[in-house]
């Protein structure tokens, strides 16, 4: 018997040993074991916020992010057994893939599947860049429809920037050229931080294959990016881009741009940049409007005159000698396009006919001796600094320090050479003239919103509230009127919309001065001339056919855009008539919500009819009575619009069908009938 107890003791000792080992582990090894286990099983994952959208001023979506998916197959997935990876399933999927994407034959797909399955490839690329809809479809296919572990499908989400309006203002919005979420230009770059939002790091504990659970259960999602509302008006932008494209094509030009700005606020309503590279069609290749500084040519003449007027050296009637239109100055020749109509012109007339010689003479007389006086004015006009605008890449103007000016610098600058400025510089200056001497900062940002709350709206920034004296402004405006009335831009004159502006035809140096002359045609101005709403600049670079003069090549684009904007803007046009409306003029509203009736009456400035109910209708004596709606009875919807009728009937639990269009003239269940839920009522519309 003793042996049995010895045996029992042996086993009991073994069990004590086991428990002792447990206690030892818990007392002395626990810390290290748990720490090491946590360090290998806990990982952090960055949750990237959804990038904000970019909208037009009126809330149209210009840039947004769409998810795209890359799909790989893990042929080594635990659940992808021979029961799943059957020849039948493989055949079906191969056929479906081939039929869907036409990139390989079903046999090719089939062979690939078997090959990579044999190799136990854990990351076989099935398809890149498929849409959510395609992914969902794919997940209904045989074997793919199984759980992640069985199908072996690895789906990776990417974000792709989508532009619902296509190329519109693309350079200004910014492009993700490499599809990797980095932007090299435009608002996307400048506002990258706002748009990106805040990524959040979350801790996860790894569980079984492919499954992890968050450590902190506290719901903390990434702060999604802010939305940017631009000042762009999608209709005007469309018009501008379209007109520019047509002109560029017509003149076989290299590139061109349009900027249209609201005079009072500096809000840019349209900015189009089109260029041609290799192919024949024009695309947004570069932000010429903001980033390309060139010699402006004749549009500069107004700055020269403005400068002289501010210095009280001339007024618009001061005579200028311009001889036969040729001026020799220190061995260089300055020529007018045409010989002047008379050897002596007034300042106004000289600008109207765009006389180079007259401008050079004026500069020679007044500024050669005092170059810094001229320079200071140009500096005030903003021609020495990049324009402040909310996108990157604003070009720095080129204008030498007056101490380094030669004897011919002032006369050349006076008619638009020896300095380089961007189209936006020119527009900013002309806009100040339209705005009675107040210079405002051009802006592309209407407001920035976060979670449907406006967090920033920069508004209008006045850069200089007295850029020019009132006297100068008046005279300059008259001169610009004159350019269109009887000057170089006569071709743009119409009776219905008066515009004011200045043409420019510059010889540019982009392919060598003399050998092969290239021109830059431009037109800058504002409209309506007597009450300026918008200022605009058109620049067309290197027109190749159909003329190169600014009045034609650029002026016609200006005219076209101005006309269309004018026709779109009711407030710009004079009222046809404005008769007083009385209560009796308001048409009878047969049956509607009281609130709606009150709003319509308020619009006409009339007192809303009395009555206490939510719904009202016209009674027999043409006065309003309450439409008595009861919760369990079919309401009377005769006379209502379909919207109201649908709302009312469906909120009573009825199913509605209708025939015809217009107002309700009949209902299949009479008003006041008791409702049984889910009943169908048919409406007859007039």
């Amino acid at each position, binding site marked *: 018997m003793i*042996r049995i107890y*010895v045996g029992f003791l042996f086993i009991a000792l073994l069990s004590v040993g086991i428990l002792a080992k*447990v206690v030892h*582990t818990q007392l002395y090894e626990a810390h290290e074991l748990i720490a*090491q*286990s946590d360090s290998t099983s806990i990982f952090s994952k960055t949750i990237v916020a959804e990038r904000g959208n970019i909208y037009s001023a009126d809330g149209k979506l210009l840039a947004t992010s769409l998810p795209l998916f890359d799909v790989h197959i893990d042929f080594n997935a635990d*659940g992808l057994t021979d029961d799943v990876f059957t020849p039948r399933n493989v055949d079906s999927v191969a056929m479906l893939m081939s039929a869907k994407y036409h990139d390989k034959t079903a046999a090719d797909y089939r062979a690939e599947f078997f090959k990579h399955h044999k190799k136990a490839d854990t990351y076989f690329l099935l398809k890149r860049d498929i849409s959510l809809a395609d992914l969902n479809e794919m997940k209904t296919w045989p074997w793919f429809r199984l759980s992640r572990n069985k199908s072996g499908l690895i789906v990776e989400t990417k974000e792709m920037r989508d532009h619902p309006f296509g190329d519109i203002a693309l350079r200004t919005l910014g492009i993700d050229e490499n599809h990797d979420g980095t932007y090299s230009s435009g608002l996307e770059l400048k506002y990258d931080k706002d748009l990106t939002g805040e990524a959040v790091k979350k801790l996860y504990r790894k569980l079984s294959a492919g499954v992890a659970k968050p450590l902190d259960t506290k719901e903390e999602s990434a702060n999604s990016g802010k939305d940017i509302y631009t000042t762009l008006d999608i209709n005007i932008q469309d018009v501008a881009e379209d007109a520019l494209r047509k002109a560029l094509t017509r003149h076989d030009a290299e590139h061109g741009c349009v900027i249209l700005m609201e005079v009072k606020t500096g809000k840019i309503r349209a900015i189009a940049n089109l260029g041609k590279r290799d192919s024949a069609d024009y695309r947004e290749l570069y932000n010429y409007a903001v980033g390309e500084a060139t010699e402006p040519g004749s549009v500069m003449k107004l700055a020269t005159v403005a400068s002289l007027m501010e210095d009280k050296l001339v007024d618009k009637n001061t005579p200028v000698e311009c001889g036969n239109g040729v001026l020799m100055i220190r061995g260089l020749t300055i020529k007018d396009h045409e010989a002047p109509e008379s050897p002596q012109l007034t300042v106004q007339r000289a600008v109207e006919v765009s006389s180079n010689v007259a401008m050079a003479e004026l500069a020679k007389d007044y500024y050669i001796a005092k170059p810094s006086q001229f320079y200071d004015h140009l500096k005030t006009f903003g021609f020495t600094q990049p324009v402040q605008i909310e996108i990157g890449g604003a070009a720095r103007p080129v204008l030498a320090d007056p101490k380094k000016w030669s004897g011919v610098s002032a006369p050349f600058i006076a008619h638009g050479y020896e300095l380089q400025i961007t189209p936006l510089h020119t527009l900013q200056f002309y806009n100040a003239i339209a705005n009675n001497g107040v210079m405002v900062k051009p802006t592309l940002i209407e407001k920035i919103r976060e979670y449907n709350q406006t967090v920033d709206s920069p508004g209008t920034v006045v850069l200089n509230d007295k850029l020019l004296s009132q006297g100068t402004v008046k005279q300059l405006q008259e001169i610009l009127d004159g350019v269109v009335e009887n000057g170089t831009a006569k071709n743009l004159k119409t009776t219905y919309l008066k515009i004011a502006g200045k043409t420019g035809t510059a010889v540019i140096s982009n392919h060598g001065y003399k050998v092969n002359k290239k021109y830059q045609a431009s037109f800058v101005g504002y409209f309506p001339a007597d009450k300026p709403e918008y200022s605009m600049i058109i620049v067309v670079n290197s027109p190749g056919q159909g003329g190169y003069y600014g009045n034609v090549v650029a002026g016609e684009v200006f005219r076209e855009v101005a006309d269309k904007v004018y026709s779109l803007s009711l407030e710009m046009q004079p009222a046809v008539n404005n008769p007083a409306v009385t209560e009796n003029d308001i048409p009878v509203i047969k049956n509607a919500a009281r609130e709606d009736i009150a709003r319509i009456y308020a619009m006409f400035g009339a007192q809303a009819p009395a009555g206490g109910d939510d719904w009202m209708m016209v009674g027999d004596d043409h006065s309003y009575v309450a439409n008595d709606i009861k919760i369990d009875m079919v309401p009377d919807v005769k006379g209502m619009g379909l919207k109201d009728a649908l709302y009312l009937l469906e909120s009573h639990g009825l199913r509605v069908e209708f025939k015809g269009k217009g107002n309700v003239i009949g209902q299949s269940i009479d008003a006041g009938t008791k409702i049984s839920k889910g009943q169908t009522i048919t409406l007859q519309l007039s």
Partner: protein
Amino acid sequence: MKETVNKTFEYLRGDRIIWLVVIVLFVFSMLAVYSASSSLAFKNADGNSSHYLYKQILSALGGILLMYFAHMVDYRYFSRIAQILWIICVPLLLYTMFWGTSINHASRWIRLPLIGWTFQTSDLAKLAVIMLLARMLSKNQDKMDDFRKTVLPMLGVVLVPCMMIAKDNLSTALILFFTSVFILFIGRLAIKHLALLFAASAVVIGLFLAVLLLTPDSVLAHMGRMPTWKKRIQTHFINKEPNADDDYQQRQARTAIARGGILPNGPGNSMQKHFLPEAYSDFIFAIIIEEYGLIGGIFIVFIYLLLLYRCIRIVMDAPKAFGAFLAVGLGVSLVLQAMINMAVAVGLFPVTGVTLPLVSMGGSSVVFTSIAFGIILSVSRNIEASQEQEEELATA
């Protein structure tokens, strides 16, 4: 309440405490398997974690049914059955060695024709050897000193199947051998023979280890499971390689134990079940400690010791009978297996692949474990009956 319990037990004969042990172990098995198999459920049953619970409930019910039938059989029949079983099991083991179903280079399973069930022949052999030993011990109690007539045949009964199992499942063979020696010790094998046996085994094991460790890996690679054994022994006893599979398993198991603490954390709260391979079978003891704390671990150990104690009580009642050796032999076998499993789970022994009787998930071993329990219960039932008879005779 008490009455219904008594009523239920009316149909169950045999030691009530052992029945209780069975029920408690099954309940633990449900809880632990349900929790530990969740990662398995994710892989194979589309995340339906009840899938394995249902399977386990079914196998537990099947096990109880088997026990019931086995315990209704008069244990004296098992004496003859033991001989037949042993004679059947030798060719079956041979068959398994050469034509069995291989998993990880180990040919341990055979598939029953017609029904299609697979089972591990070593489980059957274990039952046969222990039953046959019990028969031989009870028949030869008066001539235990006779080496040639008594000891040698008994050693043959043990060693023949052990050697056949050893090729593919060394640890099971060693456990069976050791269990048999344990039973022989209780069955009054002479100390001198016992000493001889130990000396002989020490020499054999020593030689074997020397060959295993000194033969280069390249030669071992062609010799069945030799490389696996070598690796296991190396990881556990010699140089603790940090990334070996077994070490990883035991490390995860020890982490589970570390996370468990003293008091229960509650069912389903195991973290390590996600990292611990075989959490639901070989290492379920670690998961039990993680979810039920040291307290839970002590309870399980206590339950197995209780089982052993009840088996010993049977021997006390009938010290030299076949039934006594049968019950204590099977009891020792079950409890020793449990202890080895737990010792592996806590990192005391190297990884062997032995299940925790009635608790681990796994269908085929439940069958033989349940039969073993049934036989023990049958013995206790018959002893109870004969005691009652005696009492009746005494009072008459």
